[in-house]
Structure formats: C-alpha cells, structure tokens
C-alpha cells in the first residue's frame, strides 16, 4: 500500500508522511515477527512501521501492506513502535508480508545499531580491503562480501 521504490531522499519524505498516517491507521497495527537463528527479537508484537533494506531499494512497510516477499541486503531495519524507533543492522535475509498484515523478517544476524563501534568497523574495512586484492579467489570473494556489508554499516553509522 505504501510501497516506496528505492531512493533514500524519497524515503525520507515519505517517512514524515508515514508518521502522519499513524492516526488513521491506529486501529490496525502491523504484527512484527523478527527472528534470528539464535534469538527472537520480536514475536508478533504490534508496531506501526518498519523500514527494510530490500535489494530492490529501501521499503517502508505499514499495516495492510500488499503481501510480498523481499530479499534483504545488508543494511538497517528500523522498527517504529509508536513514537520511538529501534534500529537494527542486519547482514541480509528475507522479509515476508503475509495477507493478515504480519511482517516476518528472517535474518542470519542482527544487532542494535548503537552496539557497533566505528573504530573496529574501520579496522575491519582496512583488513577486508587488503584481502580483496588477494590472489586466492576464495579469499578475495569473501573479502568483497565483507566490504559490501561493512560499507553499508559505515554508511548507517554516519
């Protein structure tokens, strides 16, 4: 329903618009299931909006969103509960919107954004950069994936 296709600037403007719609969408909430293999972050709790880093671009999900399946790339999942919001950095995964307005996010790893330290990210980037030019194909490929995640993390931390 409020599907936003790509573009952070667009997202920002719709964010404020999304906030204005809270009043009229007060009756029906989005049920969020946010699960990791080793931990359950949200188990069917009611939230107002969730922003997802989908591979097709940033997506904001409100209640009664059309059923869809989105593949997530490394980025920030932002969960709005009323006026407060929680930010999680995910490494990737899948998000599914069910017909009954349930959003299921399956991710391999997710941590609150404020639990990351800028310095260690920077040193990891330096290390990954070194490995990316390795002659061993496997090491280089792994480093490229690392870089992708770390750059997304760096951008999110700024």
């Amino acid at each position: 329903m409020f599907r936003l296709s790509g573009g952070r600037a667009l997202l920002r403007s719709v964010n404020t618009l999304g906030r204005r719609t809270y009043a009229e969408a007060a009756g029906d909430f989005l049920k969020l299931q946010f699960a990791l293999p080793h931990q359950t972050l949200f188990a069917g709790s009611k939230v107002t909006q969730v922003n997802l880093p989908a591979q097709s671009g940033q997506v904001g999900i409100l209640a009664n969103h059309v059923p869809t399946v989105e593949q997530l790339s490394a980025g920030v999942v932002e969960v709005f509960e009323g006026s407060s919001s929680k930010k999680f950095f995910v490494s990737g995964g899948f998000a599914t919107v069910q017909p009954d307005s349930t959003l299921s996010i399956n991710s391999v790893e997710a941590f609150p954004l404020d639990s990351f330290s800028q310095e260690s990210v920077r040193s990891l980037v330096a290390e990954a950069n070194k490995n990316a030019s390795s002659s061993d194909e496997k090491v280089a490929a792994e480093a490229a994936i690392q870089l992708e995640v770390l750059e997304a993390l760096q951008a999110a931390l700024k």
Partner: protein
Amino acid sequence: MFLRSGANCARSVAGPARTFATLREIEMRLKSIKNIEKITKTMKIVASTRLSKAERAKVTAREYSSAERQFYDSAETKPLEGEGQKKDLVIAVTSDKGLCGSIHSQLSKAVRIYLEKTPNADVVAVGDKVKTQLLRTHSDRVKLAFNGIGKEAPTFEESSLIANKILQLGGGNYSKISIFYNDPVSSLSFEPRVKPVFNEAAIEQSPSFAKFEIDADSKVSQDMFEFTLANQILAAMADGYAAEISARRNAMDNASKNAGDMINKYSILYNRTRQAVITNELVDIITGASSLG
C-alpha cells in the same frame, strides 16, 4: 565379561552350595554395578544441565522457521507431482552420539519405511548414527553423510554448510525434499516427523503465489529455496538435539534406577552369602573343637 559373571552369579543363586569364591565374585560384581551407577548418574546430570539450553535453542529455531512456514502456508505451496523421472531426496537428521534410548533407531526406521515406499529416493545422512544404520540396508541410496553433529546446540553456520553441500549435490533438481527429524513432543516422549522443503519451481507454481507481489526477475524464489533449506535443516537439528538430550536424560535416569535395583539385590545376596560362609566356618570350628574335647 559382565554377561559371563552374571551367568555365574545366577547359577550360584540357584545352586544350594555357596562357597567363598562366589562371595568374591558377588563383591566384584557389586562394585562394578556401583561404578556403572555413578557413570549413568553423572551422564544424567550432564544431560539435565544441557536440557535447558537445548530447549531454548529449539524454541528460537522454531520461531525462526515458523515465519517462513507461514509464507508457504498462505501460498499453499505443494511438492511438484507428475514428474516420475525426477528423484526424491530424504535428509535424515540425527547425531553422532548414542546412549539415548531408541531415538536414532526410530528415526532410521521411519526413513527405511519411506525408502521402501519410494524406490527412487536418495538419502543425505546428518549424523553418524543414522548413517551406519542406513548403510546396512540401503547403502546405495546414501549419497552424502555428515558427522560431528550434535555435540553442542546447532548453529546456523553448521546448517548452512550442510545446505551448501546438498545444493552442490544438485539439491535443487530433486522434485521433492523431505527432512526427517525427531520432534520432542514432551519432555518424556519424542516422535520421528517429516517436513517438506520446496524447491524454486514448486514455490513459483504454488496455487496462491499470485497473492504475493514479487519481482519476477530478481530470482527471489531460488534464493528463498536455498535460505529455507538451511533454515529448515537448522530447525530440524535443533528439534532433534532437544529430543536427543531429553531422551538421554530419561535413558540415563532409567539406567541409574535399574542399577540401584541391582545394587539392592546384590547387597542382600552378598550379605546372605557372607553370613552363610561365616556359619559354615563356625560349624567347622565347633565340630572340630567338640571332637577334640
């Protein structure tokens, strides 16, 4: 060794003559049972302490896999049919360690029954126990086997490595993939269960797939299949691990109880025999003394 000495003891109980030698034997046997009881008690305590961790892992893994299950339920995904030439794949999830009752053999039994019904199914064995049991009867069907499973609560890393190997084997080409695992029904019982994993063609041909708005060109269904495979293997491993730990706890509990019963029985037998030996010796001494006097 135990068998033989057990048989000897049995004879000594039945026979009227009790000599000093059997007393020694009974003493040795009593000691060995006491040692076994100590070991089984310790194993039970170890299993009990692991149980809570295993239960937690099971609950989170279930929550994790149920999110996906909902998608397949609302899309009404079914395994593809009418493709007789394509093969079935069975993933049997157990672990490497025994001493936990019949949990592994029950799973192999379920797999075996399935294999009898579907002659063109291949097997991937996760864990040494199911591998050795299936190799005995269906050695040509086992395509891939993993060990080193079930020492600790399973992690996503393990399951994704297993899923990766299965995909390298051509996991996507099987028309139907079933995961066999032990489901802990309660803390006292378990049951071998089967759950399906759908490949990308099955996902795309789901009757209610059109309900979902999905980019057709971004290969969502293929990635989804691979991700689901790893997730479902993880959930099966977590369920199996919890079932195994509670089964081991129960098995060790029963073993300790049985050992306790045996210890009681043998202590009585030991004391009686000792008493008999003393009486015999007394009789000897008294008859000797009276014949002298």
